[in-house]
C-alpha cells in the first residue's frame, strides 16, 4: 500500500535525482532543463500527495499552477537555448565560463 511515507520518499528521491542531474552533468544544457522538469514534477507530486493526505484542494490547485509555470519556463528555457546555440553553436556546459569571477 502506498502510504504517506512512501510518497514522501519517492518525491524526495525524484527531487534529489533532479538536483544531482543539474550539477553532476557537465555536458548539455538540455539535461539541465530536463532535470529541472523532473524537479518540478516531483514538487507537483508532492503537492498532490499532500493534498490527498490532508484532504485539501489547495495542493492540487498549486500543482496545476506549477504545471503551467513549468511549461512556460521550459519553453522560455528552450528558446534561450536555441538562441544560445545559434550564437555559440555548442551547448556544452563546461565551456560556459563567461561569468567567471
Amino acid at each position, binding site marked *: 500500500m502506498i502510504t504517506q511515507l512512501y510518497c514522501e520518499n519517492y518525491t524526495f528521491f525524484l527531487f534529489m535525482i533532479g*538536483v544531482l542531474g*543539474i*550539477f*553532476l*552533468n*557537465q555536458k548539455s544544457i538540455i539535461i*539541465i532543463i530536463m532535470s529541472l522538469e523532473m524537479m518540478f514534477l516531483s514538487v507537483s507530486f508532492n503537492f498532490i500527495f499532500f493534498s490527498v493526505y490532508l484532504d485539501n484542494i489547495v495542493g492540487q490547485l498549486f500543482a496545476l499552477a506549477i504545471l503551467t509555470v513549468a511549461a512556460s519556463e521550459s519553453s522560455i528555457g528552450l528558446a534561450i537555448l536555441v538562441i544560445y546555440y545559434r550564437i555559440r553553436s555548442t551547448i556544452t*556546459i*563546461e565551456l*560556459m*565560463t*563567461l*561569468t*567567471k*569571477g
Partner: protein
Amino acid sequence: MYLLIILLPLIGTLITGLGGRWLGRKGSNLFSTACVIMCFFLSLFAFFEVGLCGVPCYITISSWISSGALNISWGFLFDSLTTTMLIVITSISSLVHVYSIKYMEYDPHCPRFMAFLEIFTFFMILLVTADNFVQMFLGWEGVGLASYLLINFWYTRLCANQAAIKALIVNRVGDFGLSLGIFTIFYLFGSVDYEVVFSSASVYLNHTIYIFGIYINTLTLICVFLLIGAVGKSAQLGLHTWLPDAMEGPTPVSALIHAATMVTAGVFLIIRCSPLINLAPNVLFLITILGSSTAFFASIVGVFQNDIKRVIAYSTCSQLGYMILVCGLSYYNVGMFHLVNHAFFKALLFLSAGSVIHSLSNEQDMRRMGSLMYNLPVTYSSMLIGSLSLAGFPFLTGFYSKDLIIEITQISYYSNLQITIGIFACWLANISVFFTAFYSFRLIFMTFIKNSNSSRNHMNIIHESPKLILIPLIILAIASIFAGFLTKDLFVGAGSDFWGNSINMLPITYNLSEVEFISTSIKWLPFILSTLGAVFAYLINIGFLKNNIKFAYSSKFKKLAFALSKKLYWDKLYNSLIVSFLMHFGLNISFKNIDRGFIELLGPYGISRTLYNFSFNIIKIQTGQITHYTFFVITGLCLLLLFVPFWTFLERLVDIRLVIFSFFALFAVWSDKTS
C-alpha cells in the same frame, strides 16, 4: 632692587639676542656685560642686606597656576643661601662676560654668544631665587636648555652637536627624577612651596606610600628622586658622562657652566632641600656613597687626560663629589662653602686654560704645550694659584673648604659619632686629594714648565693674552687667594648664624667643634697627601722618573693607564648596554615591529590587505561553471538549514562581533605569512 637682579639678565638677553643685529658686536658686548655687572652689584647689596643684616626677603608677584589644590605663584625668595648663590653666579658670570669680549673677538656670532651667556645667567638666577619647586624646575630646565645652546655654540661642528645633545639628554634623565620628586611632593604635601613643604616635612616622618607592591617611606622616595635630579645636573657617578664631553663649547662657556653655575645647581638643590633630606637618613647614606665615589672616580680618571680642558672638567666632577659627600654627612654649610670657593678657583682655572688655548692658536692638547711660563707669565701665575687652591694648599681658598671636608670625614674615625659611611668617604676623599694634586700639577708641569713641544709656527706668534682676558684672571686669582679666608668665619665659623633658616643641619651628626679637636697628625694628612701628589707629578714629568720607560711600558701599567684614559670604559659601557639597546629598541622593535608592524597589521594596512586577499580567494570560487554555482547554492542552503536549530544556542556562546574580529585577525596573520 631684588626684582632687578632677576630682570636685568632677562632684559640683557632679550635685547642682545633679538636686537643684536642693530646693536652690533660692540654694542651687544657692552650692553650684556653692563647688565650682568649691575646685577652683580645689586646682588652684593642683597647679600649685605639678607646675609649680613639677616633680613630675608620674600616677594610674591602673582599667581601662576591655580587649579584646585595646586597653587603655584611667581614668588622669589632671598635668604642667605640664595644670596650666596647669587654672588657666585653673578660674579663669575660678569667676569666671564668681560673675558668673552676679547676671547670671542673674532667670532662672527658675538651677539648670539652674549645672549646665550645672559640667558644662562637669567635661568640660573631664576633657579636659585624660586620659592617653590615648580619655579625652581623652570630655572632647572632653562639652565639645561642654555647649556645646550652654549655647548652647541659652534653648531657647524659635529662633535659640538653630539656633546650638546648628550648633555641635554643625560641631564633630562636627572630632570625626570626631579619631576617625579616634585609630583611626589605635591602628592604628599598638597603644595610645592618651600615654606609649606619644609615646615611640615617632619609631620610625615612615618608616612608610607604603596608603590610597585611594596611600602616605601614617602620622604625617602622624594629624596631619592631629588637626588636623581641632583646626580644628573651635578654630574655625579652614573650620569657624569656629559660633563667631560661638554668641553666642546668655547672655554668661557666651560668656565660658566661647568665650573660655577650649572653643575652647582644639583648641590644647591640638595642644600635647599636639606630639611627634607635630613629626615631620610637612608638617602644621606646614598648621597655620601655617590659623592665619594664620584670624587674618587673623577680624580683617577683626570690623571690620564691629555686635553687641558678635560683635566679641569674631571677635577670639577671630583670637587662636586666632595660637595655632595659632605652634604651626605649633613654638613650642608660646608658643602655650600666649598661650592663658593670652588666656583672662584675653578673659573680661574678654566679661564686660564682659555688664555693658554687662545695664545697657542686653539691648541688644547697638553702634550703639545710646554715651557709657557716664560711666554705667559700672568696666565702661569693665575693657573698656579688656581691649582694650588684646588689642591688645598694652606691658606688659599681651597684649603679652607676642602680640608674641612676631609677633616669632617675623618671625625667618623675619631669620634664616637659612629657614622660608618664616613669611613668609606674618608678613604676615598683622602685618596682623591692625592690624585687631585697630582693632576693639577701635572697640568702645570706639562703646560708651563716642561720643555716645549709646540710647533715653531705657534711659538713664533705666541703672546700674552690681551688685558680684557687678564683682568678677570687677576680678579679671580685674588678671589682664589682670599675668598676662603674672608668668608670662613661667616659660612662655617663656630656659632655663625649666617645661614639662618635657609639650611637645616641634622643636630645628631652636626658637630663642627669635634673637627677642631682631631689630632694634629690627621690634620696634616691632606696637606702631606697633596704635597706627595705634587712631588710625584714633578718626578714623573720633570724629575728622575721622567725617562723610567721600564715602568711606563710595563704591561700592567699600560693596561691600567689605557683603561683610565678611556674613562674606565664608562661611556663604552653605556653605549653598548643602554644607548645602542635603546636605539635598537626604538628602531627595530617599537618602530618597525610594533608601530609599523603589529599595529599596522591589525589596523589599516592589515585589514585592507586581508580584505583584498580574502575577496581574491572568494573570487576564485566563481569559476563560471553553472554546475559549481548550483553546488554552492544547494550546499549553502543545506548548511544554513543545518545550523538553524542550533542558532539560539550558539548565539549565547559567541558574540558575533568577536567572531568576525578574530576571523579577520587570524586571516591577517595567515595572509601575512603566506604572501
